[in-house]
């Protein structure tokens, strides 16, 4: 079964080719089949491979499949090769399964759109690129996947071309992530030049041998990787593209901007864990950026009146939590949270999509309200997702969030601050999550429901809801054999090269209980506050309470980072226009510049 690893990106890739070439000639049902079936097959293959690896782990804990040699020069070679270890399995399985559900939901969401085939073509290309990214054996192939997902993101955000605002949002996303791509490429070449290889594992071994912790080279390389991850995962200060990216169709937001593409940064940092442990300063930066984003995003989500934007800020905030975990070296916990987050966030977006369809393609929450009676199953799904997001006990999010908070507490001095910030973030998360639930589904009904979801949309949502509830239980001791299933499974991935990346030594039972109860308390407190502000308190007073949070929103939206980006873009265009004024078309002017350059060159050469 492992030999079919190449099918994972190949199947969606083939779907892309077929849809791109034949798209216009296919009817919508056929296009839907071509769009969803290959990804479903890939997901099945992934799960089969995962099962096989669980039952009989491959030799050495990992499996490598080389397709062909891409580049070979005198002292390095880069193959198109896929690498499978527990981390890759978890990532690939998550991506594939979530993608199947999202695509299925999209069949109904995009029904009737005249870009139907094009949509599914680009989505399949995205899935293929994302799978290449997570399965890549070397950094260059990872970069190919990285660029591919960025390109698909650009194409999908601006999918509805009639409104120029979509194009602008797409360009903005593109430009900001491009900065990250630049940093990534610089980092890759730097690593190649200094360590001689781009093979991810060979690279890390070489780095550990060549560089002492804190060495300038390690710090530079890790900083470049962090910059790339920050841009791709919409962390502060490169976060400004994510809220605007909600201009794309909701399935795009569900798959790309919640579950998979934005978490590519998390994957990158986790994968290159050794490099980061060699640069403690960068690790602290990671944790700091993550925590800051978590708070800022959470606060901003509190003040949104647009459902999708709220979920976008929420995504930003949750990924901040993952970054904070990575920053203290708790990669296992971070990846576990990625898994649960992918499930419940995409669920929330899909449910939001169904809600938007019901109230007439609008995501403005002023139009929503009291929908729990007219959309009961959507309500259940959204509620499950929100509970998981909030970290209510025994939902999946609870386990992963608690794991992270435990790690934050136990990883050394100063980390207590991070833990406190994480707890505050959990509180905010529960608050805004349930605020959304109450605003959308409770209260008076404002609009007559236009469209109820059919089975095509209901099945994915309810399946994801089930996963959102149950997925965390694999972590509960006693459910699967030796308990702590995901943790141990993932540890195998990290232990091979760096023992300290696994979960910290078990804290004392008292500390454990303190952490558990504080996390639970934060979640319940947040939910209660949400109930209170939406139900019991007048809207005006509620706004006053959330007023401080809107300060954060303004900082995020129009603050320094945003102004800096605009200034850069504007400066570029202005310089270009000034340069273009030199193109007068007059020969004598051109000759004059030529003469001037000659004279200057001679003088510079002789006298400098």
């Amino acid at each position, binding site marked *: 079964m492992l030999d079919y690893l190449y099918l994972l990106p190949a199947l969606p890739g083939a779907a892309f080719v077929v849809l791109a070439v034949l798209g216009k000639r296919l009817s919508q049902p056929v296009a839907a089949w071509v769009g969803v079936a290959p990804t479903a097959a890939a997901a099945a293959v992934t799960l089969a491979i995962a099962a096989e690896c669980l039952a009989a782990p491959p030799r050495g804990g990992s499996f490598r499949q080389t397709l062909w040699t891409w580049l070979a020069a005198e002292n390095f070679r880069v193959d198109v090769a896929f690498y499978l270890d527990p981390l890759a399995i978890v990532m690939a399985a998550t991506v594939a399964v979530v993608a199947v559900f999202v695509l299925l939901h999209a069949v109904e969401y995009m029904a009737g759109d005249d870009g139907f085939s094009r949509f599914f073509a680009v989505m399949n290309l995205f899935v293929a690129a994302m799978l290449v990214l997570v399965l890549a054996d070397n950094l260059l192939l990872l970069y190919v996947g990285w660029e591919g997902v960025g390109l698909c993101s650009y194409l999908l955000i601006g999918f509805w071309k009639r409104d120029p605002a979509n194009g602008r949002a797409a360009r*903005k996303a593109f430009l900001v992530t491009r900065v990250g791509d630049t940093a990534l490429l610089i980092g890759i070449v730097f690593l190649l030049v200094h360590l001689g290889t781009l093979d991810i594992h060979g690279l890390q071994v070489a780095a550990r041998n060549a560089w002492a912790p804190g060495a300038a080279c390690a710090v530079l390389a890790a900083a470049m990787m962090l910059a790339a991850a920050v841009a791709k995962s919409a962390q502060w200060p490169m976060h400004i593209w994510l809220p605007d990216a909600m201009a794309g169709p909701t399935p795009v937001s569900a798959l790309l901007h919640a579950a998979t593409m934005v978490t590519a940064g998390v994957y990158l940092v986790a994968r290159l864990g050794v490099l980061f442990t060699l640069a403690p300063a960068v690790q602290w930066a990671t944790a700091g950026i993550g925590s800051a984003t978590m708070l800022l995003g959470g606060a901003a989500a509190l003040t949104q009146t647009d459902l999708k934007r709220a979920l976008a800020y929420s995504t930003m905030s949750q990924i901040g939590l993952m970054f904070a975990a990575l920053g203290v070296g708790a990669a296992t916990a971070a990846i576990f949270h990625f898994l649960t987050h992918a499930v419940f966030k995409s669920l929330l977006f899909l449910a939001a999509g169904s809600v938007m369809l019901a109230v007439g393609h609008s995501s403005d929450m002023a139009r929503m309200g009291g929908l729990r009676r007219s959309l009961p199953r959507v309500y259940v799904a959204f509620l499950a997702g929100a509970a998981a997001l909030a970290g209510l006990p025994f939902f999946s999010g609870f386990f992963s969030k608690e794991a992270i908070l435990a790690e934050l507490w136990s990883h050394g001095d100063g980390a207590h601050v991070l833990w406190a910030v994480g707890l505050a973030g959990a509180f905010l998360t529960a608050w805004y999550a349930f605020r959304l639930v109450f605003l959308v589904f409770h209260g008076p009904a404002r609009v007559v429901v236009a469209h109820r979801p059919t089975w095509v949309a209901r099945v994915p949502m309810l399946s994801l809801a089930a996963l959102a509830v149950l997925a965390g239980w694999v972590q509960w001791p006693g459910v699967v054999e030796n308990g702590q299933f995901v943790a141990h499974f993932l540890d195998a991935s990290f232990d091979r090269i760096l023992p300290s990346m696994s979960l910290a030594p078990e804290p004392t039972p008292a500390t454990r209980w303190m952490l558990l109860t504080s996390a639970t308390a934060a979640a319940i407190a947040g939910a209660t506050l949400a109930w209170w502000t939406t139900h019991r308190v007048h809207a005006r007073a509620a706004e006053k309470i959330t007023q401080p949070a809107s300060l954060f929103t303004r900082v995020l939206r129009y603050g320094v980072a945003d102004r800096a980006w605009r200034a850069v873009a504007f400066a570029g265009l202005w310089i270009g226009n000034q340069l273009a004024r030199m193109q*007068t078309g007059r020969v004598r002017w051109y000759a004059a510049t030529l003469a001037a350059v000659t004279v200057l060159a001679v003088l510079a050469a002789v006298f400098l």
Partner: protein
Amino acid sequence: MNILSVVSGHHGLAVAAALFAVGLLGVLTRRNLLFVLLSLEIMLNAAGLAFVAAGALWGQADGQIMFLFILATAAAETAIGLTLLLIVFREKRNLNSDAIADVPHVSSRGVKSNHPFEGDKPVANSQ
């Protein structure tokens, strides 16, 4: 007496440089295309003179051979140049070099709508 020992190569180079500068100035200041061609010719010949002078400095014939090459190619260039001049004259009835630069294609201020973030202004409700 060998003339080369009277007029040293150094002076020849200086004259060549001066001629080159004169030619360059001519290209820059003359508006009539014919005179521009003339100045170009002067520049090329100045370079040729420089070669001759340099050859004289070193006592080699290479410089003069190079001058022959330059002469021939300059002539070819001038031939094409004069042909183009004829065509320009036929169309425009004058040889003003500034006039041939009618530039409908030069986009003056770039395209405003290219601004990547344009339109992204704060709207009251959407935070």
